[in-house]
């Protein structure tokens, strides 16, 4: 062993653990960058070689590349190879380099110089190497587009690791990843393409976060704490709640106001739960309550709910008093009481009919109202109202549809998926009709806010949806008709678009379809049953043919 080489090794070994670790990271980062930009220029590899190289770990790749090579007159020893190529805390370099090797052509020459030099001369060389890397990067920009993409990708990951967070940067990175992987994605189609595309974006997003130590720790902690889909929704719920409280409510205000005006008074109680804070924020004294509310069910029911929301005992006597005032204010005849001659008959009134005069009701019970309408109330503190809304959605029911609708957007694939599995006579129509488009009423459980009374239909529908999702999963897992029959019995029957099918009925229909006595259109589509039966019959036929 050459004396100077031994000294270099000793010098590295003698360093404290943390410095050695830092050195390894620095070295490997530089190496990885060098690999990316320099190896990319090498066009001597065949497609097969490229595939083989893609499978290699960076450690092995670098080790293979620098084996038996001399750097600055010294032959590199395996110790240095391992140290610099991955034996240390080299996750940064490995991840970047592996990515780079995956994306562009691997090569050789600069690796030896990079690895050997960085390892031997530490930070000083590292800085020089950085300068050189920049020059190389500038050069590669004028060359092959793939090299350009790879360079931009690696640079962006570095930038994201060091600079203040940038969502725009993150997204650019994901798009770059997809562009770099374009050749691979080109061969995929339909759902397969989507899966691959999402996997590429997911991988790039995870890696970019992992470039930052704090982010990596937090990300790992999140991943371990929120591992299932429902768990992730709990996280989303908590994050969104905070976001809305934190001042994102401006856009929400109008929607919540529409929501309140349009249909459901139940949320009033949710709003009122935060009224003390609303009062504090606005610097006004007294309570906040709407003067106008949409009727829910009956005038009686609406008045009762309003009294509850105002912490007024909803006894029959009190409700009667409130109804008397409301029917007077709205010129409504209560037919059951034998009243006639007024403008509107309560039996002719529809849900959502706007009732005014709730301030008057409050006065009757010795309370003062400050805000005039629900809209005003919502505008006072939409963030808190929205946060309360979200609080009242059970985590398992919280999908992005709800989140984004509340924040002013309209996308949520979970909701869509549920809807998809519910395709029946109403499936072709969007769940939100034209009049409701501005209104998230049907996206939030009617029981939100603890108002009670009106939520049963929604809860029932939600339960049905859940059941159908379960059925769908179950049916899709059946590998034979026999197994499918078993699963159908487990479900206790399936609700179709026109009727409820008992297990026996379903088995009978499927059996007839199987024998060719009926077309598959007789089988309900609920839970993807029809498709699954068609697939299984096809499978059965194929097996018979093969036998």
């Amino acid at each position, binding site marked *: 062993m050459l004396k100077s080489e031994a000294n270099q090794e000793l010098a590295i070994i003698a360093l404290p653990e943390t410095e050695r670790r830092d050195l390894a990271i620095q070295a490997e980062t530089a190496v990885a960058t060098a690999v990316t930009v320099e190896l990319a220029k090498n066009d001597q590899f065949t497609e097969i070689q490229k595939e083989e190289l893609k499978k290699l770990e960076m450690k092995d790749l670098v080790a293979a590349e620098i084996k038996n090579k001399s750097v600055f007159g010294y032959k590199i020893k395996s110790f240095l190879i391992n140290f610099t190529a991955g034996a240390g805390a080299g996750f940064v370099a490995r991840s970047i380099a592996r990515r780079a090797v995956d994306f562009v052509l691997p090569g050789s020459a600069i690796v030896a110089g990079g690895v050997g030099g960085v390892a031997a001369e530490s930070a000083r060389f590292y800085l020089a190497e950085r300068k050189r890397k920049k020059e190389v990067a500038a050069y590669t920009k004028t060359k092959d587009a793939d090299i350009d993409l790879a360079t931009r990708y690696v640079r962006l990951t570095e930038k994201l690791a060091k600079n203040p967070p940038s969502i725009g940067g993150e997204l650019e990175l994901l798009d770059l990843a*997809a562009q770099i992987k374009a050749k691979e994605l080109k061969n995929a189609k339909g759902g397969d393409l989507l899966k691959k595309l999402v996997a590429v974006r*997911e991988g790039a997003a995870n890696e970019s976060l992992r470039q930052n130590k704090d982010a990596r720790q937090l990300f790992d902690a999140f991943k371990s704490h929120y591992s299932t*889909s429902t768990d992730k929704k709990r996280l989303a719920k908590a994050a969104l709640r*905070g976001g809305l409280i934190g001042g*994102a409510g401006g856009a929400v205000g109008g929607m919540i106001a529409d929501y309140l005006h349009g249909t459901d008074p139940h949320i009033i109680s949710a709003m009122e739960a935060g009224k003390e804070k609303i009062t504090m924020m606005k610097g006004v004294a007294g309570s906040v309550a709407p003067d106008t509310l949409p009727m829910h069910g009956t005038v009686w029911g609406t008045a009762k709910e309003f009294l509850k929301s105002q912490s007024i005992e909803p006894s029959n006597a009190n409700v009667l008093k409130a109804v008397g005032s409301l029917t007077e204010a709205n010129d409504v005849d209560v037919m059951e009481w034998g009243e006639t001659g007024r403008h509107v008959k309560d039996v002719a009134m529809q849900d959502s009919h706007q009732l005014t005069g709730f301030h008057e009701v409050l006065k009757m019970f010795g309370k003062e109202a400050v805000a005039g309408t629900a809209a005003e109330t919502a505008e006072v503190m939409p963030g808190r109202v929205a946060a309360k809304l979200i609080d009242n959605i059970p985590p398992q029911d919280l999908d992005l549809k709800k989140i984004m609708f509340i*924040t002013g957007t309209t996308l949520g694939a979970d909701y869509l998926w549920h809807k998809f599995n519910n395709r029946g006579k109403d499936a072709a129509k969007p769940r939100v009709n034209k009049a409701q488009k501005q209104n998230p009423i049907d996206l939030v459980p009617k029981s939100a806010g603890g108002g009670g009374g009106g939520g049963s239909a929604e809860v029932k529908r939600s339960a049905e949806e859940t059941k159908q999702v379960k059925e769908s999963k179950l049916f899709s897992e059946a590998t034979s008709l026999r197994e499918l029959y078993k699963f159908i019995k487990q479900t206790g029957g399936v609700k179709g678009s026109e009727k409820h099918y008992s297990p026996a009925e379903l088995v009978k229909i499927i059996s007839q379809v199987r024998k060719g006595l009926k077309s598959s259109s007789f089988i309900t589509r609920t839970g993807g049953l029809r498709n699954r039966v068609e*697939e299984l019959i096809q499978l059965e036929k194929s097996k018979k043919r093969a036998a």
Partner: protein
Amino acid sequence: MAKLPDNYISGILKDLKLQNASEKEQADALLVLQDRFDNVVMQTLVALTSPEQKTRLTSALQKNVRVEEIISEVSSEIPEFSQALEQALLAEYASIRDAMQSAPA
């Protein structure tokens, strides 16, 4: 910024060029999309928190105490967090849609 389809199911499936796919393929695709969006929420939160907030969150997660409360607290401190989240989701959707649409039939 992506304009999201009004008729969600058919609109999104059309966006993804999956309107003629089998029912199972469509359902699988929507699940993949949903999971991606869930992860975008998590990733956006991680990306936008300061080192101090990250420490607070990591500590809460490690101790498993008041986790959701701390998440809400931290996200309320991030300026315009929900708008950022919305934009991240929309941009993600737009990117995926564009990639799917530019794929050959």
